[in-house]
């Protein structure tokens, strides 16, 4: 991968872990998705600050003993797919945690 990719969870979705899987309801069109164990690990680590390649190395390669290049390729395909559904945000720059837009000013 020629550039760093940063991923952040979209705040417009609803999400809950059920066993090893993550249930996600798209805020855009109420479509329900499930993420498998590996995708759930990526989702949970998607804080907007840590580059995807570091997440893959630290959370996937070590845990599942997979080759780094192959794991990263799969991870990029996955996060791009999720970004198309508005579930993840992607950027070449670090992403600050998006705030809920309807937040009450206190």
């Amino acid at each position, binding site marked *: 991968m020629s550039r760093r990719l940063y991923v952040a969870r979209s*705040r417009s979705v*609803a*999400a809950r872990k*059920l*066993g090893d899987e993550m249930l996600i*309801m798209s805020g855009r069109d109420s479509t*329900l998705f499930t993420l498998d164990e590996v995708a759930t690990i990526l989702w949970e680590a998607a804080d907007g600050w840590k580059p995807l390649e570091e997440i893959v190395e630290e959370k996937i390669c070590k845990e599942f003993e997979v080759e780094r290049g192959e794991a990263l390729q799969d991870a990029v395909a996955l996060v791009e797919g999720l970004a198309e559904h508005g579930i993840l945000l992607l950027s070449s720059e670090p992403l600050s945690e998006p705030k809920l*837009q*309807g937040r*009450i000013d206190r």
Partner: protein
Amino acid sequence: MSSLMVEMSAKALERGVPLSAQIDLTYRCNERCVHCYLDHDDHGEMTTGELKKLLGELASAGVLFLTLSGGEILIRQDFFEILEYARELTFCVKLKTNAILIREAEAERIRLLDVDSIQVSIYSHRPEVHDAITKVPGSLKRSLDAIRFLKAQGLKAIVADVLMRQNAEDYPKVRALAEELGAEFTLDPTITPKMDGDRSVLGLNAGEIALQNVFRDQALVGNVEEFCAPPSKADADDLEALPCSAGHTACYISPYGDVYPCVQFPLPSGNVRRTPFLEIWRHSEALKEVRSIRLGDLTTCSHCVHLSGCTRCPGLAFMEGNMRGPSVQDCEKSFARTGIASVNLLAKKSSNPALVQIQGLRPCATAA
């Protein structure tokens, strides 16, 4: 329900996870609907802090689908603070409201918080009928305006109608109105007894003819022939089936922290002010009893012809006195749908006290 949702519900059931919960934030209301089952006085609602703690406990327990209802939810001054917190905890939030306090600003705020859907009660297209049911002049206009504000924000609105004597003829026009507004439409043919057990409100039921008409309305039920077909014989799988999701993957919490299997099933199961939610969910003897019941265990219904296709509500049965017994309202629905009386209705007919009264009118030979 999508196949994925069915799969996830089965997984939640297997793991004992409450996938969905309803919290009534308040029983107070700015309408006084004639059919309402609630006591609108405030007997000590949960505070903002208590509700936030509860939301945290529900999220930890695995609740994804959260319905906020009432009473009228927007009466609470902290409503948006609670909603915002619920969304921070990534619940899929559905709202139930009469919407008369929703104007442009509130609709925008609801949209910004990515609420999944807003269900609004509309009982007639005619102001004189709707407003007479809510007992609030101008309420139909306010509710319809609110739906327009919500739709202008691109939100999913659901028009919820309740079939009763006063409005039984109006639902097709309400459905048309919903369509015009870009909202979904749902019709509930069941009047629920009051939570304190008072059944007088059931006198508002629309009656058999109205039910028959509803069940033969293709726009509501789809294939009428299929929907109204005679019941098929229950098999072994049916006898092992669960009555419904209440207490299994769904639960209800009152404004006072009382946990019930469902809003329509007021079986006291614990109180979150005294006991953490998850402890109630896992260890309540009341919930364990609910979970132990299979269709084959039902006292009357297990040998009823309608068993496999009946909409029997265990909560309504509980309010009639026995959670394993029949719910006469569902027996009436099965009869209106298929023309075949349930075991319960047949038993009631054979012991009709009216016949005894007729005998009592005969001259009594032994009178002094």
